[in-house]
């Protein structure tokens, strides 16, 4: 298992390199001048030029890429253009918020999606199945910001049960969790539908398997059969997909972060791209890529834990 992780990490290094290469190609393509953005309207040409030299923007793109790369390996992602703070600090202080948001979204989608999927799979074609089917596809189809806004208007503005903005007091876990409820719902609700559909489909398949019939033949209680014998297997493809889905959640996180005025990496990257704050973009993308890979790795390891057939292969 450990060695498997090591191998995956090796692969991750290559992926990260590829991502960075892509990124630099795009930076090269996209118009806009980081120096001009950084210095504002009153700067002179000479000043802009000087900053460009300082940022290494005057050099050919491949040299910039190489420099970034070499430095990144030494843990130095450079300093961001505007405040000149180390990119590593900037990204790492935002990361926990995004992680919390995505974790919250996952919790919503797992806590609601999986039971719904199971429930509908037990009696396919029944009324419950149909209604939940329509609801879950509906939930997939509603854009997440619409959900976010309405949740906010109802629970924060009208009822005032929950806060509307921010991530909560930094020292107060309860406060932070309260602040997380609405944004994570906005991020996770679409996935509730997705998971419900997926779990339903794979449950239907697993419930046909002969070991389930054997379990029934031994008179095991239906609950045990559904949740222990069938679900542990039906969940496997879902786990892989959830790992992949993190990427998607990262992009919907931007919306939630804007609408709920939460700090976070999604918005950080978004802002950095729009302000052409390229050191920050590269650094943040690097970190999120590593994160993405790590989460996929974890997903695979979770599959390994759940599935001994895979575990022995890891």
């Amino acid at each position, binding site marked *: 298992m450990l060695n498997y992780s090591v191998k995956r990490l090796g692969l991750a290094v290559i992926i990260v390199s590829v991502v960075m290469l892509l990124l630099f190609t795009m930076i090269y393509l996209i118009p806009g001048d980081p120096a001009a953005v950084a210095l504002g309207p009153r700067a002179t040409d000479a000043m802009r030029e000087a900053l460009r030299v300082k940022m290494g923007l005057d050099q050919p793109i491949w040299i910039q890429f190489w420099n970034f790369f070499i430095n990144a390996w030494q843990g130095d992602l450079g300093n961001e253009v505007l405040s000149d703070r180390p990119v590593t600090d900037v990204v790492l202080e935002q990361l926990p918020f995004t992680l919390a948001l995505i974790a919250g979204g996952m919790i919503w989608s797992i806590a609601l999606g999986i039971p719904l999927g199971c429930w509908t799979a037990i009696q396919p074609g029944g009324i419950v199945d149909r209604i939940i089917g329509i609801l879950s596809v509906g939930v997939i189809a509603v854009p997440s910001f619409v959900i976010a806004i309405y949740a906010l208007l109802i629970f924060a503005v009208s009822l005032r049960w929950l806060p509307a903005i921010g991530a909560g007091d930094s020292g107060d876990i309860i406060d932070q969790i309260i602040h997380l409820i609405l944004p994570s719902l906005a991020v996770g609700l679409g996935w509730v539908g997705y998971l419900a559909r997926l779990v339903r489909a794979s449950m239907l398949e697993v419930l046909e*398997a*002969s*070991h389930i*019939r*054997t*379990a*029934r*033949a*031994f*008179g*095991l*209680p239906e609950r*045990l059969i559904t949740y*222990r*014998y069938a679900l*542990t*297997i039906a969940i496997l493809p879902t786990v892989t997909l959830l790992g992949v889905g993190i990427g998607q959640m990262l992009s919907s996180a931007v919306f939630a972060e804007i609408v709920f005025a939460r700090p976070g990496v999604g918005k950080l990257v978004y802002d950095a791209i729009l302000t052409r704050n390229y050191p920050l973009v590269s650094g943040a993308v690097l970190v999120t890529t590593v994160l993405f890979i790590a989460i996929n790795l974890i997903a695979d390891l979770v599959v390994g834990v*759940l*599935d*001994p*057939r895979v575990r*022995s292969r890891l």
Partner: protein
Amino acid sequence: MNILEIQNLNVTFDTEDGQLRALRDVSFNVPEHRIVGIVGESGCGKSTLINSILGLLADNGQVEKGKILFEGQNLTELNSSQLRELRGVRISTVFQDPMGALNPVISVGTQMLHIQYRSSLSKSEKLDNAAEMLRRVRIPDRESALTRYPHEFSGGMKQRIAIAMAMMMEPALLIADEPTTALDATLEVATIELLQDLQQQIGCSVLFISHHLGVIAELCDDVVVMYAGEVVERGTTRQIFYRPMHPYTERLLQCDPAGQSERTRHLPTIPGEIPDLRLRTPGCIFAARCHCREDICDSTPPEVEIEGQSARCHRLVA
């Protein structure tokens, strides 16, 4: 005393192009402490039969009429929780594909624990039970075997684990559906001997399905011969093998290459095809392929019983 009595059991499947009558007026008994074998053409409804006994028919199948009396209780009238109380405790099953019968993601020990969920024993006692059962089916290194997962065992071992699980609750009836198809002769024999041993130790009855007439002959006390959803003949093993009454049984035994003393390249067969189960033809079900077919065979044949051996054939009346 019969542990299981099946009386006039009819089972149908709803399909796209009409109703399929998988079992028709099936009747036979499984007496206490005996091993009853079922043989018959593939697709004749053997697996359907045991699924109806267990109440595990596919969604599109239903018991039309008939009774399944187990220890005097009619299983077709029980609700699912009452049935569940019997399954695993009084009736245990080894399915056609024992390799796929174990849950791949739960350790063997845990699965054996789950089966004993009704018992009030402590967890360690249950585990002891499980280990003892593995010993009986001759799984080496059984303590660690309990913590291992199905894929870590060879096919033969999985098969024996499946049998151990079936025997663990010391059921009154063990059902085994072609448990030895994929095994070579040595393992097949070992499995049969194991079943016999256990049957004697526990004192249960066994319902055993196989295509291998040699295995049936060796293992079973009684034999039920099925054809196209009907029981055409039943009797003791000796009666069936030495003095078959129904033409189908007769032909089936003749077809076994093992019965051919002379080496021949051309093996005997029963010409013709299994009738379409969707079309109900009056008369003898085997008539179309029967070598001694007469006009009277177009009417429903009577059930004739001679010395406990019974068959459905007009020929026997004469």
